[in-house]
């Protein structure tokens, strides 16, 4: 196994490494580590070299102007408070600008990220300078700038195609995460009025969140428990009931298969937020369902669908079934139609009855194909914000608690950050959610056929 890995890695190996650049490069290549692009400029790659040099100048200028200051502020996160000073001339209070820890943290993290990107470019130019030297020594052709541009449509096409998507991911996915994770280690929260100025507090927030004794800890564990219960029921009820429905419709004797299917698919086509709001309205205190029940004399007063914890939990799972069953029905139908008939025929000839055929052949076959999908569904349900937020809003909420009885970790995270402005606790919950998901995903994802057998089609 290790040997295969080595072999794979070597597929991309070139002699143009950082180590070789220093060990075997000439004076110009080595000097490139201070004057970026020098190694390229002396090998007639003037424009390329100049570009590298410009990047270096820009980076140094940025660091002198802002960067060093940004980094220096990072350990303290700012100390100057906003102050009111009486201005004699104007006769009013004038506010002197204080430090804003959020902006300091953001600027600091952004500077670190820019420095990291700069380091990548620096390594790249060292290699590039050495490559030019290496090719010259070997008497081979060195690409000029226009040829370099042209190579973006060929051997370097991935650099061209990935550039903008990567830029988006770095600044709108990675930077925000790098910015949020440190927040978990600060006291950035409405508690103690640390919304403008805050400080590093180490693992304090994790202790309060995970500690059983405190108020927060006694909220956290029940929410985590309900999140897992919800994810379990939401995933497996949907799957098994959907499968059952698919099999009933797919039976040989059922007439009008496509009509039945269409009826259920219709509910998928309605946008999810519409159907969720619709359901919330229908089951509300004065909504049509309660009206019908009262008018029919089944109940004497309105059923507390959203105000009783037990009912609310039951309802979100049931309504999630309403939304999810048609999906799994569609998928299982597709699989059922593709089951190799030799399998079931052979079983029948061997004398298996329909129940045996189902449990020994059909079900394992469906599970084999749907396995990875069910895992994704499970992780998706742990993060299923919309269903909970639009249906119950996490309610009913006990007095004095930050989380309601139907709140998942994600909706609680939302409430903690947006409603309560406990940003640090929100970040803690986010990190814990990530850990829970990673455990589920790492244990299962990497074992799916599609991950392992990537080259199967090639």
């Amino acid at each position, binding site marked *: 196994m290790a040997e295969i890995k080595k072999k794979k890695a070597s597929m991309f190996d070139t002699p143009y490494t950082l180590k070789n650049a220093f060990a075997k490069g000439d004076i110009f290549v080595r000097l490139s580590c201070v004057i970026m692009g020098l190694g390229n400029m002396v090998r007639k790659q003037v424009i390329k070299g100049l570009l590298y040099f410009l990047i270096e100048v820009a980076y140094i200028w940025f660091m002198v102007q802002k960067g060093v200051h940004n980094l220096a502020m990072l350990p303290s996160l700012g100390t100057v408070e906003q102050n009111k000073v009486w201005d004699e001339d104007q006769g009013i209070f004038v506010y002197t600008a204080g430090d804003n820890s959020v902006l300091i943290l953001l600027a600091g993290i952004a500077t670190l990220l820019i420095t990291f990107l700069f380091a990548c470019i620096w390594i790249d130019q060292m290699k590039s300078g050495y490559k030019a030297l290496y090719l010259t020594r070997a008497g081979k052709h060195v690409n000029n700038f226009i040829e370099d541009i042209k190579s973006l449509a060929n051997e370097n096409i991935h650099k061209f195609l990935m550039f903008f998507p990567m830029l988006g991911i770095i600044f709108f996915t990675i930077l925000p995460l790098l910015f949020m994770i440190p927040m978990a280690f600060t006291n950035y929260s409405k508690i103690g009025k640390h919304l403008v100025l805050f400080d590093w507090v180490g693992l304090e927030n994790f202790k309060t969140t995970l500690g059983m004794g405190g108020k927060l800890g006694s909220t956290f564990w029940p929410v985590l428990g309900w999140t897992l219960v919800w994810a379990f029921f939401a995933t497996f009820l949907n799957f098994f009931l959907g499968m059952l429905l698919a099999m009933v419709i797919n039976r040989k004797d*059922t007439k009008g298969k496509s009509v039945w299917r269409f009826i259920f698919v219709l509910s998928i086509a309605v946008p999810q937020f*519409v159907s969720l709001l619709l359901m919330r309205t229908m089951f*509300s205190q004065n909504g049509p369902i309660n009206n019908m029940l009262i008018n029919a004399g089944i109940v004497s007063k309105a059923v507390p669908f959203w105000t009783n914890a037990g009912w609310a939990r039951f309802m979100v799972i049931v309504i999630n079934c309403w939304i999810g069953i*048609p999906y799994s029905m569609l998928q299982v139908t597709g699989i059922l139609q593709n089951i190799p008939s030799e399998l079931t025929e052979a079983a029948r000839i061997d004398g298996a009855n329909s129940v045996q055929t189902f449990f020994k052949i059909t079900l394992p076959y469906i599970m084999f194909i749907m396995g990875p999908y069910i895992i994704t569904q499970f992780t998706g349900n742990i993060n299923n914000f919309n269903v909970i937020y*639009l249906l119950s809003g996490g309610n009913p909420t006990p007095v004095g608690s930050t989380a309601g009885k139907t709140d998942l970790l994600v909706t609680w995270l939302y409430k903690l950050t947006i409603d309560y402005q406990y940003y640090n606790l929100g970040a803690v919950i986010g990190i814990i959610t990530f850990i829970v998901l990673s455990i589920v995903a790492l244990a299962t994802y990497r074992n799916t056929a599609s991950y392992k057998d990537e080259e199967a089609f090639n």
Partner: protein
Amino acid sequence: MSKQVTTYAGGQEYKFEKNKMSGARVAKNAVVYVILTILSIIWLFPIFWVVLTSFRKEKGSYTAYFWPKGYTFDNYKKLFTETTQLNFPRMFLNTLLVSIFSCIITTLFILCVGYCMSQLRFRLRKPFMNLAMILGLFPAFMSMVAVYFILKALGLTQGNMLYVALVLIYSAGSGTGFYIVKGFFDTVPKSLTEAALLDGCSMLQVFNKIVLPLSKPIVVYTILTSFLAPWLDFIFVKVIVGANADYWTVSLGMYNMLEKEYIYKWYTPWAAAAVVVSIPIAILFMVMQRNYVDGMTGAVKG
């Protein structure tokens, strides 16, 4: 299968084919049909109710009866003409604008990344795929607040710049959602692309002229899903736009119609809005579904 079977019932002889039904089978089928009918009613009832309510003549929110006392088109008219309090036409145009731009960017990003991951082999490919998987595990809201601060630092949270902010939210990080497209591109036979390269095509031309045309279903699927995202999302826009009603999208507007301050006046127009929004989305969805299924089953045959 059509073996002739003879049975005796009440001294009389009936002949029928076995694949016609025996008594037990009739009963079983009856049960199945009854269950399917009940389920169909459960699944169609909410849709039926919202259509019914959208035509309801009586104003106000909840009524104590099911069937409306009168029917009218006024709710639809009100939705599109009464714009002082909640401006539905504007919400609709906002959503359309944002979804068109984010659709273009997202589609380009996903197709480019999908092509690189599937057809090319370079050093950072596997690390990137692992990175995309890890990033996908963080709850989206966790970074939402941070994204808001970044947009604010860029000056994109005021006035018309909010459109840019919304487009960026839906499209900027989309490069990580390449998995389905990659899976499809994987089925494009290597022999085709290699032949094209031998004929002097550049890699870019292989992408444009061979891989993309062969992958029409999945391209359509990508376009439609990315177009629909801003119509279906509700929470990102709530965090970024918040109380600034001029920039609400359809979903946020509809959420607010049911809030306490609006529900009395906007309950029946809300039902009308649900119908108005659902019809085009339902059509797009059906088209998308077909392309998705085609994409999965009718992959390129070499």
